[in-house]
């Protein structure tokens, strides 16, 4: 069996997901391939590559939203709309994480893009500007 690169596997997974294949069975197949090719330690990287492929194809955007305080439902909705508009993805998957050191504001990271509007980033920017 010819060895497939991680990028090729990611493309394959994106193709399968877009054709409606179950994510669970696909994940099992990919895990088997990675273990078989002795690349089990690169599974997280493969997941990132798949997310990038999906975002490039405007199918789905897997976004991590980091804030100092929990987001309200209204804010969550606004964030989702913003990401959908920015990535042009059909579906937006949000993963929220609290990080008090941000002080305030939020940081959004997708597979291909990132925005940092946290107070911490603003203060760092001020420090660097001087």
């Amino acid at each position: 069996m010819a060895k497939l690169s991680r990028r090729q596997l990611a493309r394959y997974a994106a193709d399968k997901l877009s054709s409606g294949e179950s994510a669970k069975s696909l994940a099992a197949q990919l895990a088997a391939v990675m273990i078989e090719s002795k690349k089990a330690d690169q599974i997280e990287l493969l997941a990132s590559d798949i997310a990038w492929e999906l975002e490039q194809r405007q199918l789905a955007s897997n976004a991590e939203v980091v804030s100092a305080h929990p987001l309200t439902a209204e804010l969550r909705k606004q964030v989702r709309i913003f990401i959908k508009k920015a990535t042009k993805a059909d579906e937006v998957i949000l993963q929220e994480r609290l990080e008090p050191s941000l002080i305030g504001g939020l940081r959004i990271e997708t597979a291909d893009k990132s925005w940092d509007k946290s107070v911490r980033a603003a203060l760092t920017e001020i420090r660097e500007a001087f």
Partner: protein
Amino acid sequence: LSVVTLQFAESSSGGISSLGINLQGFIFQLITFVIVLLIIWKYVLPKIVATIEARRTTLEESLSQARATEEALAAAEAKAAELMTQARADADEAMAEAKKQAENVIAEAEKTAQERAARIIAEAEEHLDQERQNLHSQLRGELAGLVAAATEKVLHRKLDAKQDSSLIEQSIKELA
């Protein structure tokens, strides 16, 4: 000649004898004198003349040489004087040239020293300016750090969830 003389003596013996002169003796002496004179004329005189002539030639040559030597000496003295004059002129010119070169060297050295001093001063000023800018930048950075740290502390205490929500909403509007 002797015969003629004897005939003359015989014809006039009366007159001379009356004067108390022995005519024969006189004639003999005259002949002897003539012979001696002839010998001298023939053999001695040419040598003497030649010797004198040689001496005269030698003297003339010596004189000529002396004159030539004198002239040569005069010419040599004139040449020496000319050379001395030329040498003095050359020496004066060389001195003037050396003086001019020395002045040029001094002027060049002064110019170089002035340029170097100006460069050193400019470098020092630039260094000071750089130091001042560094210090200013450092102070500005420290001040910004202090302001940021103070702001951070204040915001940590003052920024509650409600205010943070408002801030996030504004941020999203800015991003959109």
